């Protein structure tokens, strides 16, 4: 099955060039941007997940946003009461802060590293608390897909060994937020603890 690009609108070359130049100049002129950028920036193409945002129509997607948009990719799990909701809340607050026009050009893709417990319904319910219906609820196609994405982005996770059927186990995860641009490049990663203001500044800087 061919993955459907998150980018569904026809890409306009000129817009892409303008965005690219804007991104480059924004990054060069703004050394104080929060988070870090890797050199070279990893490409996220070919990493596919199933998006369960729409209950009856799960879609295979990649991690590349529409032209002119940014995607915040987060690998977490729903049984996480502290770190994950704090990060989701911080991003939600940043989207509120930058205003509807910019917010509409950003979206969170939450990838569960705990598909055993995190089913589609719970993912949707969870994410809608933070982002209404404007999110991607991503469940890995299979373990290999999750591992491939983790390798590419540098995500680490560990699921505590447990008996089959046991729902009580701990999860460790590197709690970074990965910022992907419309070229499919990981342009920035923010550590746990980045503030809503950090996210807002990044959105303003990367979306001229």
């Amino acid at each position, binding site marked *: 099955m061919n993955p459907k690009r998150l980018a569904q609108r026809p890409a306009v070359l000129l817009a892409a060039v303008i965005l690219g130049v804007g991104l480059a100049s924004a990054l060069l002129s703004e050394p104080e941007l929060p988070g870090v950028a890797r050199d070279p920036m990893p490409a996220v193409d070919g990493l596919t997940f199933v998006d369960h945002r729409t209950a009856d129509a799960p879609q295979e997607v990649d991690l590349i946003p529409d032209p002119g948009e940014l995607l915040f990719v987060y690998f977490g799990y729903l049984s996480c*009461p502290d770190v994950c909701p704090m990060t989701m809340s911080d991003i939600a607050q940043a989207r509120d802060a930058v205003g509807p026009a910019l917010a509409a050009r950003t979206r969170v893709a939450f990838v569960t590293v705990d598909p055993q417990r995190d089913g589609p319904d719970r993912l949707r319910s969870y994410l809608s608390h933070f982002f209404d219906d404007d999110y991607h609820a991503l469940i890995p196609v299979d373990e290999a897909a999750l591992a*491939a994405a983790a390798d590419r982005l540098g995500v680490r996770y560990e699921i505590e060994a447990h008996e089959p059927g046991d729902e009580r186990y701990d999860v460790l995860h590197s709690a970074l937020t990965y910022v992907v641009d419309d070229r499919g490049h990981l342009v920035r990663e923010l550590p746990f603890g980045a503030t809503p203001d950090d996210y807002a500044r990044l959105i303003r800087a990367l979306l001229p």
Partner: protein
Amino acid sequence: MQRYRFVASAVAVGLLLPACSGADGPDLTVEGAAAVVQQPEAAETDEEAAILVHHARSRMSPSRAGVAAVYLDLENPTATDDVLVAASVPEGFAGRVEVHETYEVDDDSMAGDGHMSSDGNGHMSDDTGMHGGSDSDAPAMMGMREVPGIPVPAGSTVELVPGGYHIMLMDLAEDLVTGEEFTLTLELEHAGAVTVSVEVRDHADV
């Protein structure tokens, strides 16, 4: 701001836990003589060991996640160090309540703990999943763990905030809904049981 004050019985100076004297405790090295004199006096006149709890709040629990974290400030105005050792909620509200901390995994301490080899191939066996090596470029992993207690040194305020300590509610019978309140009982080593009302807040107000 709601304020709850609870009073427990007197605490003898002999019960002071030296191990719990944090950086905020009495400075015994500077003007040590004065401190040594004052300390027993303060304890002897402290007939009530009180702990004040401020800002008890919880983030609404989204999506039948079944878990929630409670945050609050613990103020210890007494001359006696104290420790938050446990917490509980009314029967049937949550299956388990634990005193937790969010921590960053120290990879050195996990050596030989089944980390993946350097081939980098991710895998998840039937009941175990782990991914990512612990090389120097790899980001640290975050986790949660139960702690035996949260020290609340004499004369200090300890804040349980996102990313640090929290009281973890597990197996919640119902989702926590913004605007609701529930009862939480804290167990302190010296002050004893302290019952507070926890306000359920929207995610952005925690």
